[in-house]
């Protein structure tokens, strides 16, 4: 009792003073990391402003951080392009076609509102420009910095209406105030793009959405501010602005174990980097640690995705897009939960909340269906096929969000189509709702000539689920997989007790046991009868 009385006010006081400190320092948001910096950016005369544009801020930053832009130029965040060393495939946002919005090419000005640069509006963007690196989108701590959705990476510099025709105005951010309050990246910074992928909150990943800005412990044990308060970069660490842990080069099995500086690659973007290869305590069921060779940690520890209160998109059918109302405006239909289930701009959607992942063998390799790869419309196209099988000791069973839908392909050329959706020109789909024009322009932007024959093909795209790590008491239990129709019902190549059996042996065994029982019961009954007759 007594210790309790002493402890609580102590903690409370600490909390209150931390709160007060963060309120004064952090301009009301106060990410805890700010308090450890040795530099108070509000004291730098270079950052007094005013800054007419984003690149002006960057020029100021570069006066001290002379190498920063050069570092960023080397990263995927800047190039949106990466070569897969195993397959030679050129991947990255700039090169792949997905089954959400399609492709970046020919739609730059819209898509690059999530680029860490300013001004990538078409194929002429200068990737060597240092001033065009956007420092603020990652380092703003005020929460007030916002890129304009259709501004090719710039924020607005004058009050601008968005969405067009809505009457709602986006106000230009105070760039000087924001520049004076820069700090380390936070969940909110990364989330500005990564929580809103696919065109809005929660749409794309399933395990990344705005609920992860301030997740409760039930949602993510690591990132919950209550205890560990990890930011994204706590795990996605890296030197020289090169962030580790890309989906394009996934490690399905990190056999390095706990990463010790100097001994390993220093990457913390795997569970094993901190938890090691035998993460469960000695007191726990020994089978748990024995599962880590074949089962990814997240397979049990992320029981469901889209658990934070936001539904994620599970199905997107572009083939039904284009229905307009009498005023020529795209029709929108919402379901009873307020989710958009049809948009004249985009087609039909299906959503999921608290979704149980699909499970597949995964060895870390991935093979994309890129522009030019044969698509004949006959079967469901895997946008990204993850490799792996039970026979390969480096494969483990992983959880995935599998996004499905239908998207445009060129029947004549037999390839996924590049669609020019966004733009002010006449051919953009969202202007004229004319597929032929939009595909013609899209294909031209990658140097191809549209055959004139458009089709829609069903595609699927797998997204490894790694976030939204639940508290241990919510982890997937044994029986959820070790049962006849459990989570791993579709996993091939392994014998799993409780799921598998030899049917005829069971039949034989139970029949034998039953016959034995009947025989002894009959024998006993006759004995009993004979016995009572005699006496």
């Amino acid at each position, binding site marked *: 009792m007594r210790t309790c009385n002493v402890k609580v006010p102590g903690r409370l006081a600490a909390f209150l003073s931390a709160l007060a400190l963060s309120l004064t320092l952090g301009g009301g948001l106060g990410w805890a990391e700010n308090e450890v910096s040795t530099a108070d950016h509000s004291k730098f005369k270079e950052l007094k402003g005013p800054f007419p544009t984003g690149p002006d801020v960057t020029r100021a930053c570069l006066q001290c951080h002379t190498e920063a832009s050069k570092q960023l130029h080397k990263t995927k965040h800047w190039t949106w392009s990466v070569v897969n060393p195993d397959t030679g495939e050129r991947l990255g946002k700039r090169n792949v076609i997905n089954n959400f919005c399609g492709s970046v090419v020919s739609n730059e000005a819209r898509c690059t509102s999530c680029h860490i640069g300013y001004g990538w509006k078409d194929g002429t963007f200068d990737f060597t420009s240092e001033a065009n690196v956007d420092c603020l989108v990652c380092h703003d701590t005020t929460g007030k910095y916002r890129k304009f959705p259709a501004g090719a990476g710039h924020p607005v510099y004058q009050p601008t209406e968005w969405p067009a025709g809505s009457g709602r105005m986006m106000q230009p951010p105070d760039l000087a105030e924001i520049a004076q309050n820069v700090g380390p990246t936070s969940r909110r910074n990364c989330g500005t793009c990564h929580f809103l992928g696919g065109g809005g909150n929660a749409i794309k990943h399933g395990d990344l959405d705005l609920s992860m800005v301030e997740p409760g412990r039930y949602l993510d044990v690591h990132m919950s501010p209550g205890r560990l308060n990890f930011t994204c970069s706590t795990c996605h660490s890296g030197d020289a602005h090169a962030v580790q842990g890309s989906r394009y080069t996934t490690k399905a099995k990190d056999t390095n174990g706990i990463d010790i500086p100097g001994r390993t690659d220093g990457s913390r973007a795997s569970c094993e980097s901190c938890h090691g290869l035998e993460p469960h305590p000695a007191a726990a*069921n020994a*089978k748990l640690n*024995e599962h880590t*060779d074949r089962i990814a940690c997240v397979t049990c520890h992320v029981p469901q995705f889209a658990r934070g209160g936001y539904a994620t998109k599970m199905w997107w059918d572009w083939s039904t897009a284009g229905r307009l109302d009498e005023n020529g405006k795209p029709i929108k239909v919402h379901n009873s939960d307020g989710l958009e289930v049809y948009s004249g701009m985009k087609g039909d959607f299906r959503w999921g909340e608290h979704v149980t992942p699909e499970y597949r063998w995964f060895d870390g390799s991935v093979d994309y269906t890129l522009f030019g790869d044969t698509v004949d419309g006959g079967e469901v196209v895997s946008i990204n096929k993850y490799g792996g099988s039970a026979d390969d*000791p480096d494969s483990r069973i992983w959880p995935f969000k599998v996004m499905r839908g239908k998207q445009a392909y060129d029947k004549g050329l037999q390839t996924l189509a590049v669609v020019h959706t966004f733009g002010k020109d006449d051919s953009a789909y969202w202007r004229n709702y004319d597929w032929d024009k939009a595909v013609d322009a899209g294909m031209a932007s990658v140097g191809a000539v549209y055959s004139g024959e458009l089709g829609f093909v069903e595609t699927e795209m797998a997204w490894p689920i790694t976030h939204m790590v639940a508290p241990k008491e919510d982890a997937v*239990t*044994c*029986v959820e997989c*070790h*049962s*006849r129709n459990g989570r791993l019902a579709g996993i091939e190549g*392994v*014998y799993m*007790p*409780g*799921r*598998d*059996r*030899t049917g005829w*042996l*069971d039949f*034989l*065994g*139970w029949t*034998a*046991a039953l016959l*034995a*029982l009947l*025989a*002894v019961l009959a*024998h*006993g009954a*006759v*004995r009993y009868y*004979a*016995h009572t007759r*005699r006496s």
Partner: protein
Amino acid sequence: MNATRIYIFKRFERFWHWAQALLIIVMAVTGFEIHGTYGLLGYETAQEVHTTAAWLLIGLWVFAIFWHFTTGEWRQYIPTADKLMAMVRYYLTGIFTDAPHPFRQTTLRKHNPLQRLAYLFVKLIINPAIWISGLLYLYYSAWPALGLDGLSLAGVAFVHTAAAFLMLVFFVVHVYFATTGHTWTSHIKAMITGYEEVESG
């Protein structure tokens, strides 16, 4: 009908029997839950209980084997054809007409020839099959380190399950035969007190 009491089962033997009975029941109940036949304790608990019971059973068997050899009791299981057919006939007919039991139990020959065969089958076939397949099953994760990569888990599980079914059949029949003594309960009492009531004469 007079009865005399003779001392058949020594203290260790009785302890061994009941401990084994309990463990086998627990293992069958948990084993078939692991097998996916029903849900009772929950898969994880069933697995934990099964593993703990397995170690206890193995410990018990090690003691029992030691005891059998040091006391020479293993000879009780040497098969014999003597009176074998008489025993079969007794169970098929004689038992209903109160015919005299063809076999006379003594301390040196406590099992009738049918029992000898049945127990020998349990000891030489079922137990080793369960034991070996169970241990392999338990150490599945260590197979590569033990150089056992060639084994298939499905195969090991098959043997283990098949042996479990044999054990189950044995169990059913065994429990029934426990009622076929001088009285319905005399065999069972014997396994508790050590003394068997036999017809005198």
